[in-house]
């Protein structure tokens, strides 16, 4: 890697080597975080662009999933299992949220016969 001109303004992207050992050769914490970041952003974009309520909730689930990856990655790279324990809790929350949200979606669907999010604009200022 040639030492390109690093813009002083841009943050330097240095991988967190340091004391955290590599569980798996060649794969560093950053890899996982990058993947979870991208997945999280995809979920976010999905949530922002899609108008179907259910798909929006699906995207939130996607974001939960992405967070889960990051959690586990951190946990494992620190060789302890708090990450995983935490994912389980994330899981419960996701399940609860899914249940409720979907019940709501059904209700909303019943009310307006459509799943389009932008129909509901009564809560305006």
């Amino acid at each position, binding site marked *: 890697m040639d030492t390109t001109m690093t813009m002083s*303004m841009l943050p330097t992207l240095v991988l967190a080597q340091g004391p955290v050992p590599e569980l798996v050769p060649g794969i560093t914490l950053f890899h996982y975080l990058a993947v979870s970041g991208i997945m999280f952003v995809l979920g*976010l974009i999905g949530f*922002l662009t899609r108008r179907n309520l259910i798909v929006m909730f699906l995207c939130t689930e996607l974001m939960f999933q992405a967070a889960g990856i990051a959690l586990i990655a951190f946990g494992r790279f620190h060789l302890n299992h708090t990450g995983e324990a935490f994912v389980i809790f994330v899981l419960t929350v996701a399940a609860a949220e899914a249940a409720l949200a979907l019940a709501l979606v059904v209700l909303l669907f019943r009310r307006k016969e459509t799943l389009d*999010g932008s129909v*509901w*604009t009564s*809560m*305006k200022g």
Partner: protein
Amino acid sequence: MMMDQMMSSLSPSFAPVWSLALSGGGGGGGEGGSALGVLASLKEVPLSAMVWLIPGLPLLGALLAGLCAVLKVRSKLPAWLMVLCLAGSFAVTFWMYQQVAATGGSTFAVVHLFDWINFNWAPGKAFVANFSLYVDPLTCLWMLFVTGLAACIALYASEYMSHDVGPGYCRFFFAFGLFVFSMACLVMGDNLLLLYLGWEGVGLCSYLLIGYFYQKPSAVAAAKKAFILNRIGDLGLALAIMLIFVKFGTIEYAKLWPMLTQYLQMAAAGQFDQIPTSVQLIAVLLTLAAFGKSAQLPLYVWLPDAMEGPTPVSALIHAATMVTAGVYLIARTLPLFQISVAPLAGLEGTWFGFVSQISALEIVAYGGGLTALLAATIGMAQFDIKRIMAYSTVSQLGFMFAGLGVLASYGAAFHVFTHAFFKATLFLACGAVMHGFAGQLDLRKLSGVMWMKGWLIVGLAMLVGCLNLAGVPFTAGYFSKDVILAEAFSVGHFRPLAWILLFTALLTAYYTFRVFFRVFVGPKHYEPGDELHAHDDHGHDHGHGDKHDHGHDAKGHDAKAHFHPHPPGWAINTVLALLAIASIAAAFAYPTYFVKGLVDTSTAQVAAGAAGHTHVGGATIFGYDPHKAMYYISGIVGAVGIITAFFLHYLGRRTAATSAADNLNLGALQRAAQNKWYVDEFYNFTIRLPLKVLSHIFHMLDKLVVDGLVNLAGLLPRAGGAGLRPSQSGVLHGYAVAMAAGIGVLGLVALLALR
């Protein structure tokens, strides 16, 4: 010379009167002696508190009149009460004069009633202005003719106002009494603030009395005009009082004179540069006040309009007493004028540089002189006899101020004294005509009134008045005007003023006899005025409210046919006779030095060398000594005026309406004089109009800008709220995107900041 001996030998009986006069004369004669004159030898003498009756009685009369109004008295009771009170007051004044005369001049008495304003503005120092009277010969002179005339005119008014018996009557006499009380406070006040109280008091009463016929909008406007113009004058007086107090620490005459001695000595020694200009400025402020009250040049416009009021009011207030207040003020504070040589020196460098060298007395003299000339010219061209008399008053006042200006304080006082009597006679005569001919005042519609039955006394009184006013030799007017003219000619640098005064005397003689020849002599002819209906059946009084609107032409026309003038009653005739005799008697005051004795033994006495007036003995007219020459010159001038009037208005008169004067086509000059040289319009245009515009601007400014800002403060939150409202659109996605973007930006900021 010959006349002096003759007169003085005639009446030795008035011992006390003469004693003062002689001593006064003597004292006067010795004016050349000490530089301070009377001021140096002023000594206080005790005087009984009885003197308080002089202002007290008129006030009592006023309160009684007020009581009658409350009790709805419908008889002439208030009139008789008022006459009684004023007569009492005159008696006490005469007694006071006796007391003062006995003390032999240059004395003063202070009679204290109660503390009015005295607050101490610093430890040990107080601003003292109490209700107390200051009695000295000048006061006696003034009060004599004020109370005397007031009593006569009250009697006259009792009959003149008879058609208004009831609430109007009481209101009239309440204001009348209050007026005499205020005049007494003004003249007898021992400090300038009490003078100020009297000053504004007479202003108020003239407002109430001019506006007596409050149904007529013109009367209300005239009253308002009079009060406001007086108020402008009062402003000058207030500032003068403040300046005097800050300078001398007191405004009481008794304490003021000793403080002036220092400056008078400087003036006498001619070191005028040592006198601080602020002290000299006082005189100018006092002049502004005097000109405001006595209707002189800049502020004279209110007096002719004041004729809207009933005639007794015009006679008393606007001829004899109130308008002389200005003259009294300057006479009383003459020492201040004598030390004021270059009051406006401060304006040296500015465009008004030329003013910086004029002394206060010159301002007074030339102010008076020019007013006299202007008023005389306007008087000549008017047709309403009361307006003519009003302008003649303004003109004569101009004479008085000129007299004061040339330091003939004795001459001015004497002219005030005589003028009060004969001008009151003239006004009352005109009033009688107006009363008898249903408000007719136009000299083109009346002629030969004197020869009508019952009108002889009025005619004779008018004749006496005119003779005095015109300055026919051996009349009182002649003597008093003569002193002023002589003094004017005898002082070197007042020569142009003297010639103006002489020319004005000519005009005065002309317009006086123009009135006399047009109205009182010649073929009998009359047309009733507009106040027609109530007059002929003056028995019962029906609501005078609607009487004044002039809409009833139809009814008026036939009433005009069988109208016959009703001659004045006994009250008017007695008063006219009395005043005519008084005017003649006033002439005797000259040789007996009656007035000279009073004036020269008071602070109004002229100290030698005052204000640079080197008594130029040498100035002569055509080589003769001015005093002696004046006897003849003014006599000739008077005669010329009368003769021209005789030819133009008596011989040249064909019918009542036209006279030879009409075909003297002076054209534009004539019309301009008739319209009072458009002075009213000029004032309206240069002062009242811009002020109106200015106040409208202020009003708009106040409403739009100042209020606008306040409303703006109310508007901003609402506008802000409306601006932010769309952000809460209710669209879910909108919120979500905002949140995401928010996270992104926050992160960015944190990133840049943390690094």
